[in-house]
């Protein structure tokens, strides 16, 4: 008897009939050919989140982003006019990489008044105009106005900086995100400026890793240690209270008693001592009022909502803090993973310790996912089994792979 009511169709999956209920293949996550198809069909078409405006705190702030699957390196910069722009990180002279520190393949960040190519000293202002060419007289009819940095479409939604590598994106960012996501317009992400950032290079296809974060069915099995031994129940299941799909994006909401309102034996001593833990600080003030977009299913009591924004972005909102995951494919069986936790800045040591406890516990369990998924990838690649059944709690996995297939098929 499920705890949370299912829709009229008796399952979330059947509530979205286009999803089907059959087995799926994970061929899209083991095939090098499919990886190549994802490049043009997805990563050079969709809006991709590369950072937040807080990563560009002042005029002249910049950061670079390596988007290996798109063969792109993008520099994102806040100009002297305060506008955020993005450019291909390529000097217009002979194609040298423009912005980098010690190692050209690594991302860099900082601030500057102009970009100078290390090779022949060509200079560009922060709006991308070519402003200086060494020994300009040696060139032939060179008009610097023709040699500005190649622009990349760039737009900001609620502080999230998105780029689009398409020559002419078919949708604006808002249109791409759609109503379910833009219902978060009022969520004050910008107030959560205390960040704990993580990075990893994982031995799994980006989608195999993303799947682990869009279902909680695995939690009792893979992360039993989230519950102290004394109260761990065998065959403990997990049910999400609400699932919702909107275009290529999807979300799930959990509900029920907040962890810290459970009896003490449901928490570890360190959680009780710091009044924090995997789900974050106990006592931080709630956001009031909660934007309606945060709990579209009207789940009472509300737990968390996990927003999956196609193709490779997750925003998980805990209430008064949030986390972000991004998965950047680097081959058919590897990807670069980025994550961060964002809190309102700690006002004192107690709050700092609360945040530290949440950040530490996050990493412990994320490593369990990563550790296991390398094995998942290896086993998938044997190709011995190619039909896999998904249950109703795994609806978002189903929707994700279907969306990927739709985009690749349409290209």
């Amino acid at each position, binding site marked *: 008897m499920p705890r949370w009511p299912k829709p009229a169709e008796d399952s979330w999956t059947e509530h979205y009939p286009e999803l089907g209920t059959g087995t799926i293949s994970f061929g899209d996550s083991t095939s090098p050919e499919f990886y190549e198809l994802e490049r043009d069909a997805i990563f050079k078409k969709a809006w991709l989140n590369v950072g937040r405006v807080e990563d560009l705190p002042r005029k002249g702030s910049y950061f670079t982003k390596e988007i290996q699957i798109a063969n792109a*390196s993008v520099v994102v910069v806040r100009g002297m006019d305060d506008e955020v722009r993005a450019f291909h*990180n390529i000097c217009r002279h002979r*194609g040298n990489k423009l912005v980098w520190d010690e190692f*050209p393949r690594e991302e860099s960040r900082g601030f500057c008044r102009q970009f100078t190519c290390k*090779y*022949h000293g060509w200079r560009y202002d922060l709006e991308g105009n070519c402003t200086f060419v060494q020994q300009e007289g*040696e060139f032939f009819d060179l008009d610097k106005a023709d040699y500005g940095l190649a622009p990349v479409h760039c737009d900001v939604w609620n502080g999230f900086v998105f780029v689009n590598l398409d020559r002419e994106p078919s949708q604006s960012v808002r249109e791409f995100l759609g109503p379910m996501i833009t219902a978060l317009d009022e969520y004050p992400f910008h107030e959560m400026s205390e960040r704990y950032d993580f990075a990893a290079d994982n031995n799994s296809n980006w989608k195999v890793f993303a799947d682990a974060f869009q279902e909680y069915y695995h939690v009792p099995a893979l992360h039993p240690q989230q519950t102290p031994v004394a109260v761990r129940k065998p065959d403990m299941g997990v049910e999400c209270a609400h699932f919702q799909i909107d275009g290529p994006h999807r979300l799930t909401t959990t509900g029920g008693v907040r962890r810290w309102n459970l009896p003490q034996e449901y928490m570890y001593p360190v959680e009780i001592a710091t009044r924090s833990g995997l789900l974050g600080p106990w006592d931080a003030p709630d956001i009031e009022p909660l934007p309606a977009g945060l709990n579209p299913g009207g789940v009472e009591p509300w737990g968390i909502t996990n927003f999956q924004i196609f193709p490779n972005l997750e925003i998980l909102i805990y209430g008064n803090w949030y986390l972000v995951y991004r998965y950047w494919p680097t081959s058919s069986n590897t990807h670069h993973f980025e994550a961060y936790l964002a809190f309102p800045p700690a006002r004192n040591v107690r709050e700092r310790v609360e945040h530290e406890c949440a950040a530490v516990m996050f990493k412990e369990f994320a490593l369990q996912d990563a550790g296991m998924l390398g094995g998942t990838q290896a086993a998938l690649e044997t190709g011995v089994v190619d039909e896999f059944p998904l249950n109703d709690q795994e609806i978002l996995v189903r929707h994700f792979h279907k969306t990927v297939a739709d985009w690749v098929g349409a290209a």
Partner: protein
Amino acid sequence: MARYPKPPEGSWTEHFGLDTAPVSYADSVSPEYYERERQAIFRRAWLNVGRVEQLPRKGSYFTKELAVVNTSVVVVRGMDGEIRAFHNVCRHRGNKLVWNEAPEEETQGFCRQFTCKYHAWRYGLDGSLTFIQQEGEFFDVDKDQFGLVAVHCEIWAGFIFVNVAREPEQSLRDFLGPMITALECYPFDQMTSRFGYRTEVKANWKLFMDAFAEFYHAPVLHSKQSPDKYSAAAREAGYEAPHYQVDGPHRLVSTSGVRFWEMDPSSLKPMENLTRGGLFGPWDKPDLGELPAGVNPGKCNPWGLDSFQLFPNFVILIWGQGWYLTYHYWPTSYNTHIFEGNVYFTPATNVRERIAQEMSAVTFKEFALQDANTLEATQLMLESGYVERFPLNDQEVLLRHLHKVVADWVNEPAGVPA
């Protein structure tokens, strides 16, 4: 205001009849184009694989892996003193004939014959098949028919060249042409003290050649190699070459010299003052006698260096300070190649001279690493295709020339382009 006079046409580029419009680098990011280069260029041109000093005696040999033409060659000085080259393949069942511990690695040494490790067939140093194990087991095998497959091999000024065409379209001398053969009497054979560098570069071979074919980059890319005072002045001045020259598929740039020993010591690195050596070589020049007219053909004074770029992939750079170096770029794929840099001096007669040479060789590597550093990233950026046209200035004329000659050879179905 240019520091050095331009030719009457107004620019070196126009003087050599080259187009001045921005170029494409499609030739450096395409696997298909690379395949065409392998056939149209590397299977037709003369390729320098070494020098006679690497074969000091009868029986000396070395092997060279030439992935670009899908072969390995063994170059050997026979008992008659002659140097020959052969495909490094046993005629029995195709085993690689000459190798040491790892078959994919080059090797060298000396021997009286070549013996195949597989079934012990033996070949003389002239390539003739001299011994077949259990010859009676074969059927009408005439050893004369099964000698090593020869590779055309000719020598110029001590440089050993091979040509894998069945019949080379030109002799080596004709291929080199007057601008290069005018260097004949340069005392390469006296400069036997060699420092060799080698690495794999993850970029198309032509892009790295381009990096060494212009010095427009020098005041910027290499500015941190010199004290600020020198670098600032160099940057302010920019770079101009006093002389460029083109002859057939080959090209040359000469630069003017810097009299380091006359400079204010604060413009130099302390170690340069101490060792009396640096990028331009040892300050104390050996006496090489009169240099052939082919050196410094532009009569630059003071003269720094001549960089002769021999098509397709070989550079001989002769320094005014009495030493020379060579570069080779051996393509291994459309976006990788093996780079070899060799620096040659006359043998040091004492420790002081040896140290000056060491300083020069070490400095060479520092500069080369800066040139190489972003090359991988450049290759990736070019392959992305987000930018497709690139403006070249007059100081980059030799880049234009290389890419044009490559295109001419690739587009020419047969016969060497004029």
